[in-house]
């Protein structure tokens, strides 16, 4: 799960009321962290489908 600076910025904005833009490092950390833990889950969905396609070649609907 993510451990980026987004949460820190969210809390700061809520406390100060001042709009904030994540700096480049904070932003990259957020995107990188998301990719690292989401990519395997999405790949799993896709791999499962590749397997099912192979298993289902002889089906018909009449």
């Amino acid at each position, binding site marked *: *799960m*993510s*451990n*980026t600076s*987004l*949460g*820190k*910025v*969210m*809390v700061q*904005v*809520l406390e*100060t*009321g*001042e*709009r*904030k*833009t*994540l700096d480049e490092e*904070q*932003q990259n950390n*957020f*995107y990188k*962290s*998301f*990719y690292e*833990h*989401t*990519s395997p*889950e*999405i*790949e799993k*969905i896709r791999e499962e*489908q590749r397997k*099912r*396609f192979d*298993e*289902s070649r*002889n*089906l*018909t*609907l*009449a």
Partner: protein
Amino acid sequence: MARLTIHQIKDSSDLHALLQQCAAWRVDPFAHLPLKNSIEHAQKAGCVTVIKQDPVQDPDYLAEYLAYYARGFLNIKKECIRLHFFSAPMKDAEDVLPYLDRISHESSDAYLGFLTLRPTLTSPVGATILSCLPSGHFVLCIDEFPVHLAGCNFSVKGTPFMQQDNAVGACAQASIWMALRTLRKKQGHSAFDPAQITTAATRFLVQGRTLPNREGLNPNQMVEAVRSAGYASHLHYFRNHNQPFSPDELEAARLWLYTYIESEIPVILGLFHSQQSSGHAVVLVGHGWSNAKVANNQLTTTFPVGTTSFLIHQAVEWVNGFYIHNDNTGPYQWLADKATGNEFSLEHTVFALPLLPGDVFLSGEEAVQTSINLYKDVAADFVANLTQGSPLPESDVVFRTYLIERHQFRSWALRSNLCSTVKDYYRLKNLPRRVWVTEINFKADYGDLAKLSTSRLGEIVLDPTGDGRDSPFLTIHINSAWTKAPDGSGLLIDRDIISQKIDVVKIQSDSRYMAYTRN
């Protein structure tokens, strides 16, 4: 002979007698289940008057006729009969034209739709559109279709239905026709007639005869027909057809299907009895609803946040079944999760083919997973940075994910009770033609439809042209009922589509608001 005649309907025997007059039936007309159930649906909708239109040159039957029946040696009629159903009674001895003139002015919503009777008596139900029943379900894959009768204009809101012709096409073609016809106006894509569907499906891959096409289609041929009509070839298998669903797999399938139905996208299902490789195709068009949660938490995501646990439920956990158009049995038929007897049920589903627009690259299942992961990141990161003693955010939420057209999303924002800052933000933000929206709703009382006007805590808006692995969010909004900020403030996380910069903005007076409801 008059082209239009009017008939008073007191009970089902009047409808049965009217059907008897329409053709020289080989068997009782009510022995045809799709015909019987269509007629019963019209009756449940309040039909008390029928206008019979004879003859009708129906374009879909004419295409079947030209592709197949015209080539037969024996003469087969090329005209159909159409029955139009009305909920407004006729006056004593009122003729058809005075009735139509009166009803079109007084109560045009009395029009309940029509049923086309083909002259081919083994498969009599041609193109049919019946209005949905008024309450108790969410039939979402619908459109409004204009109907003109003797110069009077009516319309019917429903899902087109057709029985397989069994010469030009089987259940697969009938299901594709129903799904394509439902979306023709909304998506502006082709809506092939049954003969064109068979031609498109068998363009590259043929197995058995194409005319008559009694063997049906295989999933790859169905995908090709849908793709050539302009939709994504998004075929999804839920399980190996030789192995039954596990309870977890069945729940996952329900979530998968619900996401598309909530997006108003009809889904063609391939249903198979155990150990059989020849199945049946139907079209999923809507879902039911229960005030109490019906699922057993298989879909609930639990994740640690600090020293506590947060939960994400899915709205489908309140869905008690689905509605299908089944060309073998009729329109708006109930599809239970589990089978009783020999009936098809959801647990017979092997694959699904939603009519997903071709330019939507992020599938429903990936949008659901992406939203869960984004929410987990945001919630955990936010709590980790809260100062000691601050109240924790709302920990028990319900997600509801759907694809929505940009203009519909903005229209919802405009008419909603969303706070004005966020309302204006959504109306002005640069958005793609469609967006995936995951609503974040308050869990308590979620099933109670009367409380939908204040159920919402926020939403995650995703770019449907993005990649699920690459955080394709456009906006994350969470209101004060989630943040628990003492001053009633929420937060909006905005991503600039050009620079990819992420801005965090405090939103004043950001309280609970309405879930998306259709007009």
